[in-house]
């Protein structure tokens, strides 16, 4: 080996060592900050049971809480995002009226995931249906496919976003079941905000959970059950 080669080898060694020393603390601090990354578990199926008898007509506390939590403007024009909305429904044959919140139903067989060309729409192992904002190309096919009109398209540039809830102009978005809160062991903002506790959140797969026991004991309905999408959101008294 000549002298130049030896020096070159030494230089490479030193550079690699310096790079490792530079990167290592960052990597370690990242782990300290975020804890050990743990994926969602397929043993869990997050869901909600909404008691329409407890949902007051005209009350929009859940909507306001969602808007605040997720940094939505709260506007209600045809181009504004609405992740959750209150629907007033009236049975045509009987005239019976009900008020209920409607949002992404977090289907077990989500049509939005089926039709998304880039796999931007996806279902987490724990049943939460999400949009990967870095992958969404904004084709809006999922909006065409969703039977619940649960999705919104971001029509304008955004400002003042909540860092926990990234959004992006030109992409599609919908209720995330407040996944950032759920992952911290908290309830979704709408469930927490409801003054009448009409929204019960929990793990449908855990037989000991309140929601599973309730679903077992009271009659509840999945909206458009005929489509066999098995939504994670169920309604009582519909």
């Amino acid at each position, binding site marked *: 080996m000549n002298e130049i080669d030896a020096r070159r080898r030494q230089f490479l060694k030193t550079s690699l060592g310096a790079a490792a020393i530079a990167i290592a603390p960052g990597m370690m601090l990242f782990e300290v900050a975020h804890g050990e990354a743990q994926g969602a578990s397929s043993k869990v199926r997050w869901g909600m049971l909404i008691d329409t008898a407890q949902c007051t007509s005209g009350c929009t506390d859940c909507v306001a809480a969602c808007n605040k939590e997720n940094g939505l403007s709260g506007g209600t024009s045809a181009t504004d995002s609405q992740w959750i*909305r209150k629907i007033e429904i009236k049975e045509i044959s009987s005239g019976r009226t009900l008020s209920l919140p409607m949002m992404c139903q977090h289907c077990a067989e989500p*049509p939005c995931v089926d039709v998304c060309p880039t796999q931007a729409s996806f279902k987490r192992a724990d049943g939460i249906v999400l949009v990967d904002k870095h992958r*969404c*190309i*904004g084709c809006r096919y999922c909006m065409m*496919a969703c039977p619940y*009109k649960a999705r919104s398209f971001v*029509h304008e540039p955004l400002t003042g976003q909540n860092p926990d809830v990234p959004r992006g102009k*030109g992409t599609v978005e919908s209720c995330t079941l407040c996944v950032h809160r759920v992952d911290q062991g908290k309830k979704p903002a709408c469930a927490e905000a409801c003054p009448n506790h009409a929204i019960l959140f929990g793990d449908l797969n855990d037989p000991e959970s309140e929601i599973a026991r309730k679903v077992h004991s009271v009659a509840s309905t999945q*909206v458009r059950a005929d489509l066999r999408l098995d939504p994670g959101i169920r309604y009582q008294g519909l």
Partner: protein
Amino acid sequence: MPTPASLRTKNRLYYLLLAAGGLVAGVGLYAVHLMESHGHIITGMNNQIVWGIPHVFAIFLIVAASGVLNVASIGSVFGKAIYKARAPLASLLSIAMLAGGLAVLMLDLGRPDRVMVAATNYNLTSVFAWNVLLYSGMFALVLVYLWTMMEQRMNPWNKTAGLAVFAWRFILTTGTGLIFAFLTARQAYGSALLPPMFIVLSFAWGLAVFHLVQTSIYAWNEKELDPAILNRKKNLLGVFVMGSLYMVATYHLTNAYFAHRMDFERFILLDGGVYPALFWWGYVLLGNVLPLLLIYLPGLGKTRCVMASSLMVVLGAFALLYVFIIGGQAYPLDIFPGFETVSSFGDGQIGSYQPSVYEFLLGLGGLAIAFIITTVSVRVLNFMPQDKPYIAD
């Protein structure tokens, strides 16, 4: 015989046409730039009508791109000489319209800059992802097909390539129909009739476009199409127009037969304002009845009548697609069957849509792209149909 002076005039006219096409395409791109920087807020599209005018243009171009190949298939697959002479022009039009349609579809995306994401992440259950493969495969196949026609050494492969294109375009238009057929929750869509309906529509629309371009090319070259050939091709257009009207009628009749879709049919065919008007006046009368009269009434059916009927078929196509795509979305989803619904998000309400000028500019830009590709190709390569003195079939 062309004189040097007339050739010079034509030369100028050619560059003028090209400049006009370039201008329209450029303005379309500027509209895209504005949609990119301001967001889709400057369009008429919203959270209920998520696909608008750009999709009407794009789907017309893509469906017609598949249908125009019918001319080539009748030549290559079924061996009819007058169609075979027109196969290169039909293939060129197919590529041109596919390019224009896909450009519109892509540039209307919320994030057109992520086209690489679409090209590298396939969701195998998504018909959109299938279409990415079908459209790019179609480009490649039609190019090979053209090669087998225009390069003598490749001629032996012509029949094989023609068969492949024949099969591929059926699958491609099936894919386009499936985009809507797979939408089970919407009253307007979710029907297995849609793929065959789109296939038959493609025959009529593609042939109409072909007639328009062919007549222009003949006029440019100061030639007149043999009346016997014109007669056969106009009769074929007549048959395709009747076939497509039959498919559209069947689609609406099957919908009307299902009690849960009757309200939608009443909306789209009777009391939905602009949609029934466009359907009956635009599609049925202008796009079908008048063209059929121009083709079949005794004493009519000359070149001008065929041109006029082809133009009407194209305009009727736009009317039908507007009704189908936008009217279909305007009708609200039936989230709670048997209930009336009211909300801040337009539940239970007919969606409103006012297309903006930017959407039209984008759509016209797509037409311009198809026009430029056709004009330049016809100029630099020989796409003029060369009929034999004696036609056996």
